[in-house]
């Protein structure tokens, strides 16, 4: 089981690195959305500092959604997904490997880019640290929840907008707790409560989401 997990993760990482160009796209998207806000709202430092946590997190939500869309697509098209469904290994574990690999190539780079965006929006240092922490816990959560929606819409031609409709409401708790933690950190308040809550959501998603993803895949690919 662990062998299958590792093999699948290696394969997905390898595939991702063979298409390096595509790796940069969600990151650019993330950067551009954040750039639009000073242009569209106001370049005033006080205001930017105030809306920065929300802006960065909403950009992260959207970037996660768009990059997730292709999570199962190529495997579905070339039949690899069906082989996974047929394999004797538990599907939930295989799915977890795919989601983890996907997070490593899409979520982790966002994590590295976030401090830069924080500087662009003139966030104070403790807020940037909190932003990093919430993104570190939050982006895997986004990947896990989003993958359920991707699995449900995998066979559909116009899955993109639909995916957004399905998944956005489920992202709301993550958004609330993460932005709240960053805002609290900027004001110099403790953020342990919000972080614990995010972490407990992550544990819940880690245990339940793979099962839901597996069930959804079995329904979609039939």
């Amino acid at each position, binding site marked *: 089981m662990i062998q299958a997990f590792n093999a699948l993760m290696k394969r997905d990482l390898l595939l991702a690195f063979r298409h390096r160009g595509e790796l940069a796209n969600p990151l650019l998207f993330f950067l551009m959305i954040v750039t639009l806000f000073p242009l569209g709202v106001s370049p005033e430092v006080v205001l930017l500092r105030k809306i920065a946590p929300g802006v960065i997190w909403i950009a992260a939500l959207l970037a996660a959604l768009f990059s997730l869309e292709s999570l199962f697509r190529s495997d579905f098209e070339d039949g690899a997904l069906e082989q996974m469904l047929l394999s004797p290994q538990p599907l939930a574990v295989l799915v977890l490997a795919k989601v983890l690999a996907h997070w490593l190539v899409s979520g982790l780079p966002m994590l590295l880019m976030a401090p830069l965006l924080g500087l662009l929006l003139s966030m104070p240092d403790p807020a940037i640290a909190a932003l990093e922490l919430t993104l570190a816990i939050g982006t895997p959560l986004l990947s896990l929840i989003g993958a359920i929606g991707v699995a*449900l*819409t995998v066979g559909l031609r116009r899955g993109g907008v639909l995916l957004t409709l399905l998944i*956005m*409401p*489920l992202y709301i708790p993550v958004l609330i707790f993460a932005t709240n933690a960053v805002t609290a950190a900027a004001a110099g308040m403790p953020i342990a409560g919000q972080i614990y809550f995010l972490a407990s959501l992550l544990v819940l998603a880690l245990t339940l989401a793979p099962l*839901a993803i597996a*069930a959804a895949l079995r*329904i979609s690919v039939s």
Partner: protein
Amino acid sequence: MWKFLHKLASPRYFYAISGKFIPWLGWLTAVTLLIGLYFGLVKAPPDYQQGDSYRIMFIHVPAAWMSMFIYVMMALWSGINLIWNIKLADVMTVSSATLGASFTLLALVTGSLWGKPMWGAWWVWDARLTSELILLFLYLGYIALVSAIEDRRTAARAGGVLILVGVVNIPIIHYSVEWWNTLHQGPTVTKLDKPSIHLSMLIPLLIMAVSFNLYYLTVVLMRARIEVLDRERRSAWVRELFGRPE
């Protein structure tokens, strides 16, 4: 008992039995609705603070109750469908979705109409309003998913997974929104804080709730009957009833 339930789960018997129930349920709905509206709009005394405008509550509160009740029912049916693979359960889920969304919208609109004179705004980002709005999004997402998938059976099963994921998330969403609101909003708008409601108002409210439930049952059965017919249009018993389809 079990035998009856098994029989009921077959589309054919369901079609026959529900056909007998619907007129009765329809009349009961009409009667309870009239009684409830009469006592609510005419007999119940005006509120000492809100005057007559509180009366929208007799629509608003039952609609809000129904919006949550229907989601839970859909989750139960989806669970039944995914576990025991009973076709009728997914017919009921699919037929309930639009009704649930309508009740949610009704609750939001009536709440908004009441909010304008009472709070001075059509919309405030109050925790309860926000979670009701998110509930509407969940319903609409479900409807969008089910209508996007061509095959009925697959659509219903995929929708079932989404509903079950949603039902796990609803408490999380609800409490996170409540928590968000209490932190963000300094001077909160006082809600219709639950005073021990007077009996003359409570009784019409409960009658209206019963009436809304009956309405839901009636309409969901009607919709389910049509859905059953549509799905079984190639089977022998439907042909017997309506002649051969083209």
